[in-house]
């Protein structure tokens, strides 16, 4: 006798792969109904990806985006309780489908990171008055909990901004030198910014607990002298404070 668990496994297999074992459990006239559930699964996930990757969808167009979504759905079973998590890893699926067009996966990473930042953890705002007494050489830095960062090789930020403003996006082109994108949320608004690879390295060091003094020491070999390092580090720290990337010091 088929148990409830058996039935639900067979039903799931039908929805996922079209396996017809569930046909034995449903009523004789249920084929139309089964088709509704089979279709709804894919339509729902495709809508979810279209919504989460709005600019990537616009960049690829309906047919290419939906084909990529179908490939992702075929290879990635949803597992979280929340549909909002389903876009995780779609940028890597696109990277596999478009290896010669790195702007596609970078655009998808940006869409997804902004989406995650939107409802990621809150952080208290840094109070500028508390900074006067900080011993910066030994100060541990706490960055926004929504901060995400990655190297980029294309003008993906330019493409995203053009589409966001309703303008025609520029053609994709390689960046030289390469750079990095950072995404975070300031108050309630997700933000992103192109930064240098040196700044990306500094952020990575801050996230693993290095003090500001240690970070300056680690990035120093990339500069001509101590004065140049200090100028860069000072400007970088100022932008972190001003942009809300840095949320606590101490």
């Amino acid at each position, binding site marked *: 006798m088929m148990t409830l668990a058996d039935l639900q496994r067979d039903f799931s297999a039908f929805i996922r792969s079209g396996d017809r074992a569930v046909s034995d459990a449903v009523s004789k006239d249920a084929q139309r109904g089964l088709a509704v*559930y089979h279709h709804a699964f894919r339509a729902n996930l495709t809508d979810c990806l279209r919504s989460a990757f709005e600019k990537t969808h616009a960049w690829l167009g309906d047919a290419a985006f939906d084909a990529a979504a179908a490939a992702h759905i075929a290879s990635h079973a949803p597992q979280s*309780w929340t549909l909002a998590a389903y876009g995780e890893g779609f940028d890597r699926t696109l990277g596999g489908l478009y290896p010669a067009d790195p702007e596609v996966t970078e655009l998808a990473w940006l869409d997804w990171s902004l989406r995650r930042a939107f409802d990621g953890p809150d952080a208290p705002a840094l109070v500028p008055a508390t900074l006067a007494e900080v011993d910066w050489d030994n100060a541990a830095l706490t960055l926004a909990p929504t901060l995400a960062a990655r190297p980029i090789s294309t003008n993906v930020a330019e493409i995203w901004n053009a589409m966001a403003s309703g303008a025609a996006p520029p053609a994709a082109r390689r960046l030289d030198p390469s750079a990095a994108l950072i995404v975070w949320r300031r108050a309630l608004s997700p933000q992103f910014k192109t930064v240098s690879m040196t700044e990306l390295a500094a952020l990575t060091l801050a996230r693993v607990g290095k003090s500001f003094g240690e970070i300056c020491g680690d990035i120093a070999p990339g500069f001509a002298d101590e004065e140049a390092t200090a100028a860069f580090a000072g400007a970088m720290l100022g932008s972190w404070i001003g942009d809300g990337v840095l949320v606590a010091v101490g």
Partner: protein
Amino acid sequence: MLSPVSRFTGFGLGMRPPHYPRFLEGDVPVDFVEVISENFMVDGGRPLTVIDRVRRHYPVAMHGVSMSIGAADGLRRDYLAKLKALAERVEPLWISDHLCWTGIAGFNTHDLLPLPYTDEALTRVCANIDEAQTYLGHAIVIENPSSYLTFAADSYTEWDFLAEMTRRTGCYLLLDVNNIYVSSRNNGYDARTFIESIPVDRVRQMHLAGHTAGRDGLLIDTHDQPVPDAVWALYRDACQRFGHVATMIERDDNIPPLDDLLAELDMARGIAAADRVAA
């Protein structure tokens, strides 16, 4: 000891993003709003500021789509923990979800899938409801789903299954009048028999919505159309049986201006009031 579900009897709307600004201002003439719980079960950011502000203006019903109360392998504690945290923040009128399952063995279809109406399924559903109610500390409210098929092993009608489920667990019911209509047409039963068989004292809310006729003759619960005449007629029957019950318009797609939904809500008010006068 579980907190019972109140007999709140207003008229409300489902809060959807295009209409957030007016709900945030508190100037929408409704008695309560219903939110999709999962949209606010987040770590931070704008969704939580939205729900906090809306809660200052309106009572809120939390309506979920992911509890999977019929799952043969039980409920997800990570889900329940998030739901409980939101409920503690919102202090909702009640917490509702659907009589369905959404996945098994780590695979989540994110769809409201039909259950066979069997003794085994009833036992599992009741055990899951007991677990949810104990964890949340509140009786919960369960909605009848729309359905596109039935199972060979069914040994209960849907209404008898729902009635026995409430009797065993003490949970309450959210009657989706559109779902009754859609399922009755798709599965060949009499919608009025459904309504006449539901225990009056367990119903705490009703949903009104629209649907679409599929190409293959099935009705699809799309929530993208105005409430049709057939559903209004069934709502009239429901009001006669259940009296004043909190009622809301559920529109999830092809969302019209807010005033169109308020006009539909006025129709619901009129039908419920006429029934009261007649009674």
